[in-house]
């Protein structure tokens, strides 16, 4: 088999292009968060055609399709474990009629068909049918199957140390340890004279710099805000415009923080983007061959970096998109990136995708036929409602109709482990944060009007999630924050948050959320002034409002300049639609 290697970067996929708002390959934008059902949390790898048809029937019988739940997505476990004549194929025992027949069944019911794959060589459950190197034939298959939604995972990715990849693939995504650079025949300029940007890089006590790459955001430990990539930047003065050379003294490694791939640019022109020869150890420094560069008269900026973690992943997602657009130019396929926040997709996802996962999975105890699986409210890792919420709630700046949506993973409504209050609050959080609403339960367990149905079919909460302005709620109050509740990453759950979300016609939604396991008493409020400061003209502030509680469906008139509650039960949320009256 031909050895896989990362693509050469185009101008459109390099790090410096991320701030541009344009999409790649004509990716359509303007989609509201996707709503539907995904097989993973409900059935794991054990989903079948029979179960999928039963879920589709239930969606229609329960009236969920009328509320917007239209995508029915087959997650991992639906393909044969190997390609057949180079193509993807259905697992014949679980999906005997094939995917096109299932698509026809779903489309016949007015629903939409979603599938799953991976940018790596294998799917997460092991099947050797990842899209890497097969983007074109897979796009043809998805087009033939009339797929409307594609969730694409990141396991077995060959150009990063992703889940199930060789850990030494870190060599692709981190620069070597840098000791110095040398311009022309001048003296070596030690790393300590360079400016270190971002929060990943660090200087060793003896001078060299490591950590030139992008922070791995799969886990919940660090904030997604701020510069998550590091560069080492030198300013070099030249008495004249000249052609000269640049050498680097470095040592390589193959682990998170130290790699072998170096990118260098001089005054914005990339002069190096590839592996440097391997050194014996991370302590054994060598000097590279000279690289031809041009300096201008005066100050010159030389950047040493490695943004390949983000760039490689963007390129892989873009490559599949390119062929989807080629073979299905008129099909508006929703593209869901599931790279678990590893590569800080909030920076680049908007160029190709409709949503991007922000962390590893919300649960590792998925259900199966006859077992609802298990979800947690709190955990030390990503597998809980609060772990996902705590990160997503400060990521509103990355979301929007022209960008896409932060995805705190699929809903755990109906799974074991969450009580009724936690389940209601979980759903309200996802609605307020404009998260995709992908149900993950066996819908045969739901009856019209039962407690689960009243949560997932809450029309007012859904209207908040699907509001045409597409603005993710901002946290304007957090009882655990001393300041900046909208940007402070808080993982302590003994607290009350207040989220505010502008909606069309000057209406706005407010959620008061008690994340703790005990009642909260006090005055939890936000003022008109605070809301105005956050949203300006996007909300209409009149001093007189009709306030409608979306859970008890009661309305009352509120006159004043503050919105508040004085008590919240454990895990409770009180959520209002606020309609200006004057």
């Amino acid at each position, binding site marked *: 088999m031909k050895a896989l290697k990362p693509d050469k970067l185009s101008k459109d996929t390099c790090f410096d292009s991320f701030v541009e708002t344009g999409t790649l390959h004509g990716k359509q934008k303007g989609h509201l968060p996707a709503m539907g059902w995904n097989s993973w949390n409900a059935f794991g790898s054990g989903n079948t055609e029979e179960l999928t048809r039963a879920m589709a029937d239930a969606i229609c019988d329960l009236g969920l399709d009328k509320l917007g739940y239209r995508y029915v997505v087959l997650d991992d476990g639906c393909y044969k*474990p190997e390609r057949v004549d180079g193509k993807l194929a259905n697992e014949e025992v679980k999906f005997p009629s094939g995917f096109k027949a299932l698509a026809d069944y779903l489309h016949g019911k007015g629903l939409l068909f979603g599938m799953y794959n991976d940018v790596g060589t294998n799917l997460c459950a092991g099947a050797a049918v990842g899209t890497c190197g097969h983007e074109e034939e897979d796009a043809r298959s998805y087009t033939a199957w009339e797929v409307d939604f594609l969730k694409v995972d990141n396991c077995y990715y060959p150009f990063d140390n992703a889940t199930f990849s*060789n850990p030494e693939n870190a060599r692709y995504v981190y620069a070597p340890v840098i000791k110095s650079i040398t311009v022309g025949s001048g003296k070596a300029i030690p790393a300590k004279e360079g400016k270190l940007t971002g929060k990943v890089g660090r200087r060793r006590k003896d001078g060299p710099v490591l950590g030139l790459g992008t922070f791995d955001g799969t886990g919940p430990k660090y904030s997604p805000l701020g510069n998550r990539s590091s560069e080492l930047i030198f300013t070099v003065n030249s008495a004249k415009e000249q052609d000269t050379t640049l050498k680097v003294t470095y040592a390589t490694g193959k682990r998170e923080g130290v790699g072998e791939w170096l990118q260098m640019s001089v005054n914005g022109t990339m002069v190096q983007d590839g592996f440097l020869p391997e050194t014996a150890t991370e302590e054994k420094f060598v000097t590279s061959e000279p690289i031809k560069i041009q300096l201008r008269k005066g100050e010159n900026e030389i950047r040493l970096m490695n943004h390949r973690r983000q760039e490689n992943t963007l390129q892989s997602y873009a490559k599949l998109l390119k062929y989807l657009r080629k073979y299905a130019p008129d099909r508006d396929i929703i593209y869901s990136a599931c790279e678990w926040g590893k590569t800080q997709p909030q920076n680049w996802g908007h160029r190709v995708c409709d949503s991007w996962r922000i962390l*590893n999975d919300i649960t590792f105890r998925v259900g199966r036929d006859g077992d609802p699986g298990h979800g947690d409210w709190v955990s030390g890792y990503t597998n809980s409602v609060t772990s996902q919420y705590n990160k997503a709630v400060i990521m509103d700046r990355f979301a929007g109709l022209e960008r896409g949506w932060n995805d705190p993973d699929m809903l755990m409504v109906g799974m074991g482990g969450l009580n009724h209050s936690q389940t209601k609050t979980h759903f309200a959080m996802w609605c307020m944060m404009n998260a995709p609403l992908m149900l993950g339960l066996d819908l045969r367990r739901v009856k019209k009007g039962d407690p689960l149905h009243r949560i997932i079919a809450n029309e007012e909460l859904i209207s908040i999630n699907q509001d045409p302005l597409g603005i993710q709620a901002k946290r304007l109050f957090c009882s655990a924050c001393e300041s900046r509740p909208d940007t402070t990453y808080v993982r302590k759950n003994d607290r009350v948050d207040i989220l505010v979300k502008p909606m069309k016609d000057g209406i706005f939604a407010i959620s008061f959320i008690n994340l703790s396991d005990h009642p909260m008493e006090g005055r939890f409020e936000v003022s008109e002034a605070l809301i105005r400061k956050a949203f300006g003209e996007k909300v209409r502030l009149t001093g007189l409002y009709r306030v409608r509680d979306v859970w008890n469906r009661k309305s009352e008139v509120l006159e004043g300049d503050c919105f508040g509650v004085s008590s919240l039960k454990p895990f409770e949320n009180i959520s209002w639609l606020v309609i200006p009256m004057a």
Partner: protein
Amino acid sequence: MMSSSVNRGKEQMKGVPETEKEDQRRVMNANPVTLHEFADALTALSDRITGVGSAEKAAFEEFLRSSFPAAAYDLPLPRKDAARLLHVFLYRVCGEADLDWGEAADLADVYDCRICANAIAQVCVRGILRPDRKGIFEGERFLSEAEAAEALSLLEERLRYIDAACDCRWECGRNPK
């Protein structure tokens, strides 16, 4: 039964690039068991369990067929995949419900494998497959012949004990048939 697997593992490394070879050597331990051997041993065990019928066995086979490429069958079996097989065996063949993770949640590497995390926790919390060392499961390391034999023995012992001690098949963690 499992003695040929070492040579077979070496055969599999022919033509593998040096860096990948190093990685494979890093995780290869003495006498690794192949997927084929371990799956066969579990299938043989299912023949000895009271009340296991053809439907349960077919469900286990279906998992194998749909989860692993044919090329994986003769390769050494990583411990994480051994945990998956044991977990599927527990719930598909034996009808056991999942238990709370308990101390298994503290394994530092339990989340390294998203699709194996629950399986690792379930076999560890039952004591069928032990962590490699305190706080570390080491899912990438290949399952040794000794570990496989111990896991199969502990599993059989557990099933015999449950069958002998309890008919209810509820409180013991097994679902009613």
